[in-house]
Structure formats: structure tokens, C-alpha cells
């Protein structure tokens, strides 16, 4: 079989695509396949990347969101109320549908996060300023406690005492916030 692009070289790549029952066949030689893939995707060297194609095919169409369950199936599939994503869907595409998915799937999520982030599953970084003051204070205290330990291990006790006072101050402030928070 000859390549359908150049009609010169024998076709080396055969690709059949079936979309909604409509079948398209593509037969290309290596040279033309390379050319085509360069135009389609940005990796100039790796030629046809079937993984990319597959990932594209797995992408869930929005019309697919409402699972067409048979009325006889009793078992309720856990889904997000805001974007109607189900957990199996998430596993398939590896992306969440909206911010609420994190809450909806929290029970299933922990092992996933642990695996992805070497055992971590709680945030320890930046906090948006608009989020309530307490969270900032608590993070500040946690950070100070870490440096306190560092100072003690380096036997810099004067510095450590200062940090300890600062922590006490902040803790008092935190307690005050809770009391007068209403």
C-alpha cells in the first residue's frame, strides 16, 4: 500500500479512527507521518505519539456528564453536585471538574494525594490574604516553632528565648481572637 500523502513511498503507519460510527483510515509513510505530526503537535522529533492521541480520545465530552445509568441500577455513584463529575470519571481523565470536587471526593482523595506528594496531604504554603486572620497566625506560629527548634539545636539560646516570647505573644493574640471573634 502506498502512502496517501505522497503516493511514492510505502505506507508504514496505519491508523483507523471511528467517531460516531464513521470510519476514517489514514495510511502514511514515515516521512509524511513525521511531517504531519510536526504540524499537529509540537514535539518535532518523536513522530506520531499515540499516547497523546489516546489521552485526547479519553477526554470526557461535557455531554457525557450526566451518567446514562439504567433505571434498574440501584447503586448511587458518588458525584459532585456542582459539576456532576463522578469519581470513576476523575480517575479516567485525572482532572477535577471544579473546586467542590475536592470536598466531594475527600474520602477517596487522601490516598491519591499521599501517593502523588510523597505522603503529604495537607497544605503548608502560601495563604491568600483575604482568608481569615487565624489561619495566618497559626501558620506564623508553626513557622516560628520550627525556627525555635533550629535555634535550640544550634545552642543559640538568646535568640531562642526571643522567638519563644514572640510565639507566646502570637498565641495570646490567637486566644484573644477566638474570645472576641463574635
Amino acid at each position: 500500500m502506498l502512502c496517501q500523502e505522497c503516493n511514492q513511498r510505502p505506507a508504514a503507519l496505519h491508523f483507523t479512527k471511528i467517531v460516531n460510527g464513521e470510519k476514517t483510515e489514514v495510511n502514511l509513510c514515515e516521512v509524511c507521518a513525521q511531517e504531519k505530526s510536526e504540524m499537529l503537535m509540537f514535539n518535532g522529533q518523536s513522530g506520531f505519539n499515540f499516547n497523546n492521541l489516546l489521552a485526547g480520545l479519553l477526554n470526557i465530552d461535557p455531554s457525557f456528564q450526566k451518567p446514562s445509568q439504567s433505571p434498574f441500577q440501584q447503586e448511587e455513584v458518588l458525584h459532585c453536585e456542582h459539576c456532576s463529575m463522578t469519581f470513576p470519571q476523575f480517575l479516567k481523565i485525572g482532572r477535577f471538574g471544579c473546586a467542590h470536587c475536592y470536598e466531594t471526593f475527600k474520602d477517596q482523595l487522601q490516598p491519591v494525594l499521599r501517593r502523588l506528594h510523597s505522603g503529604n496531604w495537607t497544605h503548608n504554603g502560601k495563604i491568600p490574604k483575604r482568608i481569615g486572620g487565624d489561619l495566618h497566625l497559626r501558620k506564623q506560629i508553626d513557622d516560628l516553632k520550627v525556627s525555635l527548634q533550629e535555634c535550640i539545636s544550634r545552642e543559640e539560646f538568646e535568640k531562642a528565648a526571643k522567638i519563644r516570647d514572640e510565639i507566646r505573644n502570637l498565641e495570646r493574640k490567637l486566644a484573644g481572637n477566638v474570645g472576641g471573634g463574635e
Partner: protein
Amino acid sequence: MSLEHFLNQAVSSWMSEEGPDSDIVLSTRIRLARNFEQYKFPTLFSHEEAKKVITEMEQLLETSSLQKFGQMELLKIEEMQPLQKRVLVEKHLISPHLAEDSPYGAVLLTENEEVSIMINEEDHIRIQCLFPGLQLAEALHAANEIDDWLERHIQYAFDEKYGYLTSCPTNVGTGIRASVMMHLPGLVLTQQMNRIIPAINQLGHVVRGIYGEGSEALGNIFQISNQITLGKSEEDICRDLMGVVSQLISQERSAREALRKTSNIQLEDRVFRSLGVLTNSRIIESKEAARCLSDVRLGIDMGYIHQMSKSILNELMILTQPGFLQQYAGVQLRAHERDIRRATLIRERLKMESEKIIGEE
């Protein structure tokens, strides 16, 4: 278009300027992933939501600006020509994903192209800061400033426990990806790289080629970045990456010294052969060009070649990519035609270097 004019337009500051440790580190990038709380993530959002995200960003630009970063311009993916998009990808200003699979995508660019904010890619917002040389702290600082500015106007999706919520759980928490682009010919020539890459992976870092995931390490250029985004602070993530990068820098330097001691003349020969190929060839494939450019850059760093700008590797690696070649030519080119154009562009660019020397003398 003259080559000089084209270069002025095409070269962004991170490609031409020198930064700390720029004999080995070409560039530093910080990316922060953020999302609007009220809209579905780009995986599932509707046209209306996508448009609202863009409108909100446009309004934000009209009402407030960040003095420090200068004028910002918003470009919509749907209004761009394929070639234009490709050039932005080759310059690392937008991702292939934004260019190809994000119909409602847009990008905010500063004039010096140090900052780009991708809109409606995998997440609603991706802040990117690209600096020359090794400047992790500086890039993080800049990214944080932009984040603070956006945060004043946007209700981010944030959770006390999980941090910044992202479409993909691999980015949740800090949403940060810190990456450093390194030129490591010494470690490749002394065949140490195959041993080093698994070790870096074990430390929770990822090694990739110049064009990100799945791409080859063309021209001995490697991208090292963090994998974990949850449970560590942004500063710790950068510090850990910095630790790996400084190790690599010192190993690369000692590999270069070892090469100089054991095979000085062979190395010099290799450098000048590659320079010969670049200055004389009429047809050159991108792989060969990358290899020769890497050799020449090593030659400059090690003092075999004098009076040639170091930025030549950064610049020509990017400018000889298919998109740029076609933009320079002003027409679409087939692979074979690109190889001819590439050879011409490299020859012309190297000629500019030698003319510069004559001019100075």
C-alpha cells in the same frame, strides 16, 4: 526583514541577558496555578464561564495595573494565527496545551516577556515568571507579587487543608512548579547523566528536555523541576530544588575540568569542528544544530572560543525551531526547506558576531 530587526523582535530578555551562574543555568521559571472559586475548572467549564474568566481578567487589567511589570497585553488564542501560537510556544511563553487544546485560552504578556499569565489552560490562571540564569528566589518573589495583585481582585479556590485547588491533583497545595533549565554537556560527555537522572528523581524532582514533558534533551539542555506541590512551603520547594541544582552545577564544573585535563585537544577539536559545521553548512537538521550549538557554547565557556556572545546557544536553540524559521521566512516551510533556512540563519547570526569583533577592533 533583516536578521537584526528580526532578532530584536524575537529575542526576549531571558534569552539574551546573562544571569547568575549563566555558564550552566540558562533560565529559571516559576509557575503558579490558580483558579476562580465560582467557575468550573477548564476541564468541564461552559463557554459562558470561560468567557467570564476572560472578561474578569480584562476588567482587572483596565482598572488596575502593576507598575513594576509595565504594560500588559492580552492575546486571545482564537484570534491568533497558528504560526503566532507556535512561536509563543517555542519561546516558552505559552504551553502547547494552551495553543492547541484551549479554545477559550488567552495569555497576558508583559513587554519584556518576563511574565506571562496563561488563562483557561488546565487551570483558570497560570502565572509564569521566566528569568535568565539561576534566580529562583527572584522569580518566586515576582510570581508572588503578581499573585498578590490578582488575589486582591479574584476570589481564588482555596481550601485550608488542601491549599490552592487545581484541576489536576498533582498541582494542588502551592500550585507551584519551579524549574531550572541547565546546559550540562560535561556530564553528558563523561556519561554521568544516566546515573544522575534517577538520583534526582528519587529526591522528588523531575528531569525533562528543553520543550517539557516527553521532549528530548536537545543540545544537552535539561529542565529540572519539583514534583511535589503539597505539604511543603513555596520557599522550601525552591530551596530543595536549589540544593539539587547547585550539586549539578558543581558536578558539571568538575566534569568540565576533568575533560580539560584528560582530553583537552580532543575537546578543542570537537568544539571547532562544530563551529565549522555551523559557519559553513547549507543544510542542517535541528538535532545536529542543537548538538553543534551545545559544543560551541561549551567552547565559549571553557575559553576555546573568544569574543562570541554566550547567549548564542539560548538564542539559536529557540530561533531555529520550526515556528520561528517560518516566521522569519514569512511563508510555510516543509521540513527540508526548514533545514536550509536553519543553516542560513545560523550562518548569518554567526557572521554578525564576527562583524561585531571587527567593529570593536
